[in-house]
Each structure stands twice: as C-alpha cells, then as structure tokens.
C-alpha cells in the first residue's frame, strides 16, 4: 500500500523532559519520525516541552511548539492547527507512538475527552483500543490467554485488603506494578505482608487510576525482549532479540542486556517469535514497532509473556542501534500507509526493509546509575527503574562488548579500584545492585565456580563463564613482565576486551603514564584494533552506511577517506549534569560542518541519542569515550589524510566534561584539537592560575583557596569566613559540592565526601549569601565576542544552576550590572582565547548601600547545558555557529549584524523560562533539598509574552501546578521585606489568604494595613509551618533564605512541600512571576506559540 494521500498534517507528540525511564531515546525516535514524515511531504507539527532536544529544532517540523504536554495546551495546539488546515481538505492525524508513555497517555487522554473527535484528528500508528488493550493489565492478560500464551498469575487491586488476600493465595514473593506509570514507577517486590502493604500503598497513590497489579513472582527466570514491527498488510518482522543478563526481577531498563539472544535454541527462539507476532496481532497494533517481553524458566523452558509496549521504546532505540535498523523512522512510514516491502533498507540500499536483521557481533548495554547523588536512596535494583542513562558497546564477542561497555560507563572510579568486600560477597551476588558486575568478577578472582555464582545471582551460566574466562586471563597478566609479553599474548588479552588501563593496573603501572606505556607497548607489538561495519545483514550484502565499531580481528573493512574531516566526541551515557543538551550540541556540530563540506565523524557510546543515529554524521564510531578507543579512531581516520594532507581536527568542547577530561592527553598524543585549546580549559579549571588571571583582569571572585588536606581546608575557611562552598575540581553537575556553614562541616566533608590529591585538590570558596545568580553563554572567535544570553536564576543562590529555574531575558537586574557582566564575559572569553562557546556563572550581591557587586563563580570554556535553551530562545543555533568558529570562520562573517550592534542576541518580545525536573518519586526517602549538587534529570521551557505566564507554563510542564486559590505562606529575609509587601498585596488581590512567620507578618501587616495570620517556624513550636503543609492548609510556599539561621527550617519546609506536591519559591523574582502566572491561569489563558513564528521575522543566520 502506498503513502496515504488523504492526510495532510501530522501532529507528533514528544516525551517531555528527561526523567528516569524516559530519556534521550525519545528524542532519537521523535527526530527520526519527524524527518521521515517531512521527507514524505506531510506538514509536521511537533509539541514537546523539552527545549534540549534535536526534535524541537525548528528545521525538523513545520511548526514546533515548546509547550506543556497537558491536555489543555495540546488541545489549544490542535485547535490552532485544525483552524489553519480548515480551508484545505486534507486530514489531520496524530502520531502518538514515538514520544514514550507520555505521548501515549496524552493521546488516550485527548481521545477520551473527545478532543480528537471534535477537531477531526485521526490517531495513526496505534489505535485507541490497541493502546488500551496493551496498557490495561487485565485486558492484556485476557488477550494473552485467548491466544494460548501463558502469563504470570496476577490480579488487579485498588485497595490494600484485596492485595493482601490475593498475595495470600499465590504466595510470596509477589510483584507490585502500579497501572499507567512510567518506568515501573512505584513498583516493587514484596517478600512479606509488611512489605506488600508499604509498596502497595505507594503504588496505589502513584497510579493515576489508583490501581496496582499483584503478580506471581518469576524471580530468577530468564528475561527476553523482542522488537517487533508490523505494517498495514499484516507483514510482521522481528528486528532484534535481546537477552537480559540480569534475570527477572530487575527492570529491563536497569538490567544489563545483550543482543542477540545468546542461550536459546532455535526451537525456543522461534516459539518466542511466533508468540511475539501473535501478541502483535491480538493486541491489534496495526503499524509500527512494539516491544514484547518474555520470561523463560531456565529449568524447563516454560515461557510467559510479561508485557508489551505498543510504541517505540528505550529497547527499540537500543535495537535500532544494535542492528542498524531504524525502527522509529520505519514506524513513521508505516503509520502513513507504506508497507515494509515498499521501504528500502538504508544500509544496503538494494534490499527492502522487510526482513529480519542478522548481526555478526554482540551488543551489550549497561545502565548508568547515580545513587551517589541521592544519599539515602535504596540502591537495590527491582521492578522500578532507577538508572539515569546507559552505554552500549559492540564487539565481535560477548567478552569484547561487555568489557567495552564496562569501560564506557565512566564510573569516575579508577579501573580496578572498586571497593570490593569479601564479607559482602554473597550478599552482593544475591542482591541486584549497581556493583554486582564487579562482584561477579571478584567472585571468580577468589576462585568461586560458575555454578556457585549462577546459583547466587540466578544468571545464565554461559554469561558467567565468559566473565570467568576474562577474569582468569586478567589474573595471568601480572605473571609476565611487560617486556616479555608476546604479540600473540597481547592480542589474546585485547580480544578478551581488556583495556590498556586494566592491563596497566595488573602490571601496577600507575596513572595516565602507565596506560600510555601499555598503549605504546601494544602498538609496538602491532596489536591494533580494526574497524568493522554494522550492516543489518552480517556482510551478506554490501553496506553503504559507515556505522563502525572497533574489534581485535583481522580485516579492517572501513578505510578512512582522504577528505577534510572533523571528529566530534560525544558525551557518553546520559547522567545528571551531563544530559541530552550535550548531545544536542554534538549533533549541531555535525550538521553545520557537514554543510560546510567537512566529513563529520561522531564518536559516542550512548544508544539513546540522536548523535548515534547513522544519519547524523558522515561516519559513526560506536565506541567508548576513553582515551584508548578515541585515539584508535583518530589514528584510523588520520591514516586516510596522511597522504592527501587534508585537514583533520577533533572537537572536544561539545560533549560536556567527558571529552574535556581527555583533551589534554589527546593533544599530548598528537591529536589536533580545534576550538578552545586544552591549555585554556586547564587554565579555567586550575584554581591558582585562574585566580591570577582574574586579578590581572581586575574581575572579582569570591575569596577562596585550594586544599589537599583537612587542615588546609579549615585554614581557608577561617581566612575567608563561613559559609563556604566546597567541591572537588574537574567535575560536572556540581558532583559532591556542598555549602558548609562551619568548620565541623568542612572537616566532615574532607574526611568523608571526596577523594582529592595534589593533582585534583578540593576548592573552598566563600559562599555569597542572598546573591542573585546568572548564567551567561557567549560565542567567541578569539577576536570578537557575542553574548548569546544572560539568564537570571530564579532560585536562591547556592542551588546548582542546572537545578534552578532561569529566565531570558534577565528580569530584575539593573542595566549597569548587566553591562558589568558583559564586560567581564568579553574580557574572560578573550583572555582564555576561547574559540567556540563559553559559559560563565556570576553572582550579584547587593551591599548595604544598594550597590551591586558582580563576582565570577566559574568559567567553562565549553558548550553548556543551556545552549539548546538559549538557541531556541534566540533563534540562533549557537552550537552550529560555534562549530564553524572552530574551523576558522569568524563572528564577523557569521553574525555580522549582531556583532556590529554590540548587543546580546535578541529574543524578541517574549520571555523564556527554563525549569528543572526532579526524580524524587523514584527515590523514596531521599532528601529533596536542593543545593550546589545537581539533582535534576531534565528540563522544560515555557514561553509567553509575560514573565509570569512563561514561569507558570514552565512549572506546569515540569509537573508543578501553581495553585489558583488557597493560602500562601510567606517567610522572607530582611533584604526582601520591602518587596514582600507588594507581593503579598498581589496575592491577596488574586484571592489568596496569607500566613507568615512572625517577623515577616509584622512587616506585611505594617505595609498592607491589615492583619495576616502568623505561624510558628519549625523550632518555635507547633503547629508550625511544616504541620500546615502536611495538613494541606498551605498551597504555595514563598520562602527566601536567610543563611544558616533558617537553613534547617528551609530544608524541613522543602521536604514537606515536595512530599505534598506544593510549589516552593525561593526568590522574590520567582514569587512575582508565580503571581502573574497564577493570574494567567485564573484567566484560563492558554496560549501556544510555534517557534517558527516567534523567530520568523527577526533572525537571519548565515550558514
């Protein structure tokens, strides 16, 4: 069947902010879908609240709405778009299957509310009945039984008693899965009645329909997933089989997974394939990709269906990267009527997409967890996903791919330096935790048998045997002196996947120098990796797409070209502080430089991303971002230009801290780094030298120093005065950064919190209380500087910039202060010889005389987290411009008018607010207080013609609903008291009641002329403010901080507020914005803006 010509316009719904369970994979799938639909000539409309995505780039859709993913806003967009469509006669369709669970739920919601019918919008990709049948556990179970497939015994319950009764019948342990939640949120395993009561209560609360499934436990069974595609002609194909290394019981997003399945006989695999196809047909997914999960009893092969997702998923992104088969792209084409045999396979070009990929390598995915960021969180892995990202690696064998994936994780710990405790061995093998893989190796080092480890972990002995072989090989290394190692022996080690670093560790060769020695030894023995292609067909047909991986094998089949080329290093696994924003920048660099005639080469190991789509760059190397692997790519590519003499360069400033940490060593190894040089990056990080530079430039910074011992740190604290901000050097996302109010806290930090060394001291800075913080992104070509945006934080000082909402333009900073910030920015960018992007953070402190003092907090000569947000607000693709600057082009050439004007990049008449999104619901019991260590996983943007409305939209998009009535709690510092009166008046006008702490109440009373209720501070007595929050007697908290005195009050208030889902506002600027936002909501004002219209007339960017 050919393309549907009756459809004219298609709305694609994205997945919103990055949260645990929904990450960059939906940017990848959404981007692919938008591209495919546009190519087909449809008018594509996109809505997504997440500005850090490639899919929200204005080129990818005809109209792009960065708006909250709520029924109201999407209805407004549908209304606008249906109206525009009005005159013509084409149909309006909605594709809900590429935006994760968020898009699917929203589509169901829109449909149930009659909105789709009202505007004549047709769901394509998955029909409503199919979605409901797949998502509703009872309907799903019935469907499976109808087609003769087994499912675990289960029952849906909506109260505790029914749950307990059913568990009594089937016996413990039981699984609890709340209905309609993301990434298994709120699920768990209960081994007894108490646990069941606790988990079930939470699950019922989290489920939007107040319902949970209690299920027979298949703990320890083997877990598999099949990625299935179906077209309107009922052709069904399996794209990939995935086998979980972790047995049932651990969410598949938290499991190490391997493709293809390794331990199934053909008979078992084909039965599973038949079942997956039957599921697809029975559920009624007419077109597109789905994922079906199975459990298999290793003792007798009994197979049960666990679940199916009638949409593209994290696993389908993985399967796409693992096979080279672009599931989302094909799914989009199937949704508009094509059949699989009508679509060509991109990679072979000669054969159709209607086939089943076969692969001649092994793919391993390992999740990336960040429990270190959430002290107190339970790091046991279970049915609720807790990882924030993942890495994938390709090797010719499981051993090679596992070891590549392992080193790609960037745990920050030195190889071989994990703390493994013998006494905890059994427990750590039995209980799934992030360190389990390390403990498995440890068990083999200690001589434990495969049988024993398999018994304890429930893992398949085949996988364990592979790890044992690696371990034994590794243990042998130290027995041979480096000089005595033969070429064959070295090759054997490398074929096992052992990194240069692991080999160095075995030989006790220290640090970077040791790794270098091993590398040189290895190269001297002529043991070097070759590169092979991912081609969907195991070499049966010629492949046209250079999607490459390294392996220690014989033949290199992907010789480099002799063209001028740029290698872009990606950002590795998604994590807090280094997320999709950096992938966005890397993709943009590839797009821009491709346009400029360079061959673009991407290196990355994150399967979720757009950067690892083979369509993004000219050549894709799916490799760990560690020195060994990156250097191998460089050497391979450099061979190509050795004769032609064509230019080759590497970009390290777009992938966040990961490539920056390699930059010095890459340069030392002879790699031409383009853009800002590693020396400048070092200078900005080196406390002493940077301090000297600031002195020379006469730019103030908070007093501080560096410490490599407890005493040194305390001495600095004494000298500069408390509170102090302490943090390790060279980190991203404020890792292990804290504000210490006294010497005791500093001493504790130095003793317990961080590792430091002469090379990497701890930084101790005076903390500027009650300051306003700003972020600046700027472009520089070493001669000229353009300020892209000055973002005012609308959270109190001391909260990590990534966790703070911020606004463009700055709303309450004096023009002369902004001018100071601009002056400092220019001076610093030029002094650091920045070529590309630079991000600076400033704090503005107002003194007793009302004079502003601007301090530099930090300078990062690289692309920042805010680049996509600022790009979307200004309409100028900053990363593209920056990439071009790195190749020697100039601002004069690229942005002549903006440069000549001397102004910041314009944003028109609108306000753009960025707000963070937090993973609290995944980590029960974790402290929700914000501080200098970043905790948010993603962000959203709100745009409107007033600051208030933009703020309200951003809050809404982040899942934080501002109240429209009720009581506002006020507690402000002296500095803010004058402004608080006006603010309180505004809230009263809006119909709110006010309660305040005693001091604030007195000021408000004097100012307003009438009484406000007072409430105790936490330490003053009861009922205090926290009691009121818990009793739902407060709907909004406005609490501006006053330093140490109220530090504990603030923490307690915030904890209670997060739990009760009440917004907490910590600055006057934000409180004013919230008031205006509330006013907008009260007016029932729902405005939606397409990016293309916002920037239409204003922005001219030169390519």
């Amino acid at each position, binding site marked *: 069947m050919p393309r549907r010509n009756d459809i004219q316009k298609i709305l694609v719904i994205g997945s919103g902010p990055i949260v645990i369970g929904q990450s960059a994979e939906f940017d990848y799938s959404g981007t692919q879908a938008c591209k495919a639909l546009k190519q087909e000539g449809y008018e594509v409309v996109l809505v997504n609240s997440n500005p850090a995505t490639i899919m929200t780039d204005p080129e990818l859709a005809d109209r792009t709405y960065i708006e909250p993913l709520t029924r109201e806003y999407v209805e407004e967009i549908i209304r606008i778009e249906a109206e525009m469509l009005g005159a013509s006669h084409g149909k309006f369709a909605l594709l809900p299957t590429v935006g994760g669970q968020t898009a699917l739920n929203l589509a169901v919601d829109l449909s149930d509310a009659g909105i789709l019918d009202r505007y004549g919008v047709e769901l394509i990709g998955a029909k409503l009945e199919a979605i409901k049948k797949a998502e509703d556990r009872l309907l799903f179970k019935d469907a499976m039984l109808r087609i003769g497939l087994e499912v675990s015994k289960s029952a849906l319950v909506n109260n505790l008693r029914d749950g307990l009764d059913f568990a009594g019948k089937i016996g413990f342990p039981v699984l609890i899965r709340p209905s309609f939640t993301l990434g298994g949120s709120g699920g768990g395993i209960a081994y007894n009645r108490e646990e069941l009561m606790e988990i079930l209560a939470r699950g019922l609360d989290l489920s939007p329909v107040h319902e949970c499934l209690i299920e027979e436990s298949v703990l320890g069974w083997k877990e598999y997933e099949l990625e299935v595609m179906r077209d309107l*002609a*009922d*052709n069904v*194909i*399996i794209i990939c*089989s995935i086998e979980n290394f972790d047995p049932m019981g651990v969410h598949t997003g938290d499991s190490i997974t391997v493709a*293809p*399945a*390794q*331990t*199934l*006989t*053909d*008979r*078992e*695999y*084909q*039965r599973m*394939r*038949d079942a997956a196809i039957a599921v697809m047909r029975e559920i009624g997914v007419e077109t597109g990709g789905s994922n079906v999960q199975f459990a298999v009893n*290793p*003792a*007798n*092969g009994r197979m049960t269906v666990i679940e199916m997702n009638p949409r593209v998923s994290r696993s389908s992104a993985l399967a796409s990267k693992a096979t080279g088969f672009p599931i989302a792209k094909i799914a989009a084409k199937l949704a508009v009527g094509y059949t*699989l*045999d009508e679509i060509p396979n991109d990679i072979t070009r*000669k*054969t*159709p997409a*209607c*086939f*089943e*990929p*076969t*692969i*001649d*390598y*092994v793919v391993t995915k390992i999740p990336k967890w960040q429990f270190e960021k959430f002290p107190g969180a339970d790091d046991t892995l279970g049915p609720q996903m807790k990882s924030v990202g993942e890495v994938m690696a390709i090797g*010719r*064998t*499981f051993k090679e791919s596992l070891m590549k994936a392992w080193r790609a994780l960037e745990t920050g710990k030195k190889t071989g330096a994990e703390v493994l405790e013998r006494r905890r061995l059994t427990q750590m093998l039995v209980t799934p935790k992030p360190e389990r893989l390390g403990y498995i190796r440890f068990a083999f080092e200690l001589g434990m048998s*495969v049988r024993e480890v398999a018994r304890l972990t429930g893992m*398949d*002995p*085949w996988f364990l*045997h592979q790890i044992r072989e690696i371990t034994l090989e590794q243990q042998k290394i130290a027995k041979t002196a480096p000089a005595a190692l033969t070429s064959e022996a070295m090759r054997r080690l490398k074929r096992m996947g052992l990194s240069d670093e692991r080999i160095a560790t075995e030989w006790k060769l220290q640090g970077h120098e040791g790794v270098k020695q091993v590398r040189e030894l290895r190269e001297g023995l002529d043991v070097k990796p070759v590169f*092979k292609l991912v081609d969907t*067909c*195991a*070499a*049966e*047909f*010629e492949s046209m797409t250079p999607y490459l991986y390294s392996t220690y*094998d*014989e*033949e290199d*089949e992907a010789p480099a070209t002799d063209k001028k080329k740029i290698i872009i290093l990606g950002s590795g696994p998604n994590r807090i502080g280094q997320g999709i924003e950096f992938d966005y920048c890397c993709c943009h660099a590839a797009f821009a430089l491709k346009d400029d005639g360079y061959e673009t080469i991407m290196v990355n190991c994150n399967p979720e991303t757009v950067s690892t789509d083979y369509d993004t760059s000219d050549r894709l190397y799916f490799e760990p971002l560690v020195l060994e692997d990156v250097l191998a790519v460089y050497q391979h590519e450099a061979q190509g230009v050795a004769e032609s003499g064509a230019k080759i360069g590497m970009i390290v400033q777009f992938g966040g801290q990961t490539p920056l940490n390699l930059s010095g060593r890459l340069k030392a190894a002879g790699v031409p780094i383009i853009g800002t040089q590693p020396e400048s990056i070092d200078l900005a990080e080196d406390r002493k030298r940077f301090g000297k530079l600031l002195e020379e430039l006469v730019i103030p910074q908070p007093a501080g120093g560096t410490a490599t011992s407890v005493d040194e740190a305390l001495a600095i604290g004494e000298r500069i005065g408390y509170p102090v901000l302490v943090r390790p050097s060279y980190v991203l996302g404020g890792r292990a950064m804290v504000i210490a109010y006294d010497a005791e806290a500093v001493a504790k930090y130095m003793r317990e919190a961080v590792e430091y060394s002469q090379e990497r001291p701890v930084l101790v800075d005076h903390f500027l209380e009650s300051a306003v913080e700003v972020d600046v992104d700027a472009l520089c070509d070493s001669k000229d500087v353009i300020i892209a945006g000055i973002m005012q934080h609308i959270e109190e000082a001391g909260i990590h910039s990534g966790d703070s909402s911020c606004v463009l333009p700055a709303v309450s900073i004096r023009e002369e202060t902004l001018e100071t910030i601009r002056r400092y920015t220019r001076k610093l960018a030029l002094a650091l010889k920045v070529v590309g992007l630079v991000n600076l953070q400033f704090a503005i402190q107002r003194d007793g005389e009302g004079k502003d003092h601007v301090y530099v907090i930090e300078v990062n000569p690289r692309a920042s987290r805010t680049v996509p947000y600022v790009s979307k607000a200004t309409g100028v693709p900053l990363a593209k411009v920056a990439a071009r600057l790195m190749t020697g082009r100039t601002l004069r050439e690229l942005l002549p008018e903006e440069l000549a004007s001397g102004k910041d990049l314009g944003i028109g008449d609108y306000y753009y607010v960025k707000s963070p999104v937090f993973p609290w619901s995944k980590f029960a019991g974790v402290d929700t207080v914000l501080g200098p260590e970043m905790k948010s996983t993603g962000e959203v943007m709100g745009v409107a013609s007033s600051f208030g409305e933009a703020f309200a939209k951003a809050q809404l998009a982040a899942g934080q609903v501002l109240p429209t009535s009720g009581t506002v709690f006020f507690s402000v510092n002296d500095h803010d008291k004058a402004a608080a009166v006006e603010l309180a008046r505004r809230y009263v006008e809006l119909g709110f009641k006010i309660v305040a702490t005693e001091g604030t109440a007195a000021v408000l009373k004097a100012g307003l002329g009438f009484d406000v209720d007072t409430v105790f501070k936490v330490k003053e007595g009861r009922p205090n403010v926290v009691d009121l929050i818990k009793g739902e007697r407060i709907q909004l908290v406005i609490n501006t901080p006053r330093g140490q005195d109220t530090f504990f009050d603030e923490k307690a208030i915030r904890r209670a507020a997060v739990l009760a889902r009440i917004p907490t506002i910590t600055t006057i600027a934000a409180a004013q914005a919230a008031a205006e936002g509330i006013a907008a909501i009260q007016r029932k004002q729902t405005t939606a803006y397409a990016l293309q219209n916002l920037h239409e007339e204003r922005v001219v960017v030169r390519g």
Partner: protein
Amino acid sequence: MQAILALEDGRIFKGQGYGHPGECSGEVVFNTSLTGYQEIATDPSYAGQIVVLTNPQIGNYGTNQADNEAAKPFIEGLIVREFSAVSSNWRSEQVTDEYMERFQVPVLAEIDTRALVRHLRTHGVMRGVISTQTTDADALVKKARAIRKMDGTDLAKVVSTKAVYHFDEGDPRYQAGDPLLSKAVDGPKLHVVAYDFGIKQNILRMLGREGCKVTVVPAETSAEDVLGMKPDGVFLSNGPGDPEPVEYAVKAIRGMMGKVPVFGICLGHQLCGLALGGRTYKLKFGHHGGNHPVKNNATGKVEITAHNHNFAVDPESINANEVELTHVDLNDNTLEGLRHKSLPLFSVQYHPEAAPGPHDSHYLFRDFRKMMEEWKG
C-alpha cells in the same frame, strides 16, 4: 589446537581447531542464521560443504537429540568466530565441542569470519580445506583446487536413504508432545510418499502434524514404484548439490505430474523446475540464512523464510502459460516458488519446515494437505 583454512584462490585463515582433529574439504558457504547451528550441521543439504556461521558465538546452548535434522551432521566442517567451551540450556545433552568430535566434524574457530564472508560474497563460493594437521598452506591450497566441484555433482543419491521406511506419529522422531513444536491437525490420515534427496526430519514432523503417514523412498525410486504405493501425494525433499545431474528424479516427476499432487522443497523445487522444462543456475554465494523476505505473489504478503540453496530455477526458462511464479525473494528477485496452473504441483525454493528459521511458511504444508484432499475429492 591450531587449525588452518585454505581456499582455492589462495586465501588463508589461521585459527584454533575444535571438534574433530584432522582435515576436511568442501565448498565453503556462509549461513547468516542467528540460531540453529545444530540443525544446520545436521541438514543433509550441506553435504559436501564447509559452513561458516556469521553469528560469532556458537555452541552456547549445546546440542540435543531432538534438534538433529538427520542422524548425524552432514557438514564437512564448521567455521565460527568463537566456539563455546560450555553449554547452557535446559535442553542441552552434550557440549557442542564434544558433539562435533563424536561425529568427526572439524571446527575452525577464532578466525575473522566476517572477513571470510566478505571474501565469499565478493568472489563467490569456493572450495576449501580445513586442517589441524599441517601448516603448509600451499599444499592445502593445492588440495582445495583438487576437490571435485559441486556443479554437475549428484549428491542426492549419496545422502539419500538406501531403503524405504515409514514415518508417522508413532515414530520417536515425531517428538509427540514437545510443546515447542506446532500442534497436530485432526482429520483423516493421508498417505504421502516422500522422496529423500537429503530430507530433513522436521519436514517429516511437519507432514506428520498435518496428519500424513509418510513413506520415505530412496532418491532413485521410479514414478511407477511410487504410484504403485497409492499415495495421496508425493513430496520432493530438499537435498545437496546440483539438480541438473539428478536426471532420474526429473524423469520420475514427469511420470507423476498430473497423476498425484506433488509438493517440492529446495532441491525438490529445482527438480520440479527442470521437469517443467526450465533451467537451473548457480548463485554467486547462494542463500543460506533465516531472514530472507519472500513475497507471496498471490497474497502480496511477505514471509520471513529460511533458505539454504546455491542453485535456483531461472524464471525466464519457465513457460508462463503453464506455470505460475508464486514466490520471489525480495533481496535479489530470485524465484522462490512455482505452481502448475492446471496440474496439482507446487514447489518452493526455501524451507517452510524452517528448523532452523521462522515459521511464517508453515502454511504450505497445510496447502499441500488441502491439495491432496481436493484431489482425493
């Protein structure tokens, strides 16, 4: 144990030997199936061939009696990237390495199988020798060149059963009750005579599950003898080698056409093509795998199918007035199935019995049953 592969064009691969220590020779072909190495090894169609598997991890789930497609492996040798020293599966009865040793199949591992596959893809299938006994590559290349070529060789009668035997649901090889196999149909029993040119056991199981009692006959059995057995239908099996020299079978098919329903698979299909006056030709590197898209021209639907053929019927050579071309491979447009327009005869080039491979084409056995029922009236 060191082992070496020498190809007739002089290309050498050095690796590790497993299984049977010694030497083997044959035509080197590659198979892209991800699962089913045991079924592949025991498929008689591979007689005279050394098989390279593109899946790099082989041996993981061991071997078992049930997955044998014949009493023993028919491949001459096996080439893999990594050969598992252990087996892990509840069905496994013997570690793959021991199994190969027991049946004297040499295994070459730890070579760059992808490089070998690319070589075969570019230069076509070629003869080769695996040896664990010598490192004299030149001598092995000479040996490879001396191997008798597959073209023009009748291997069907070599691998065929020497005596007639019967197969029905009482046969242990029927594997009654295995939940991994498809369910049997109810209904009156039909009698099928199956020509064994190298028949796979799953074909017998599939026929059995369609309610057929099967009489398996040697390749050289005449049409008269078969018709004398009063079959409801005749099945022509898969098998190794070039179809052209198998003239006795072509003659037999001509003798049966129109007198009894005929269903052919693989070599059986090629023989039907020849019997209908067509030509066969050799493919550059053949089709061997479990992921080939085949379009059913009648329904327009695509089946994912298991393939194992080096030869194919030239569609140009078939009389379109008499014969309908029913199936085509979407990868390279090879003819994959045909059906006589007026006589009860159809055949497919691929393997609807799979084993290993997808079950999308199981319906063809049902079609055969229907054809027999209709013929019977």
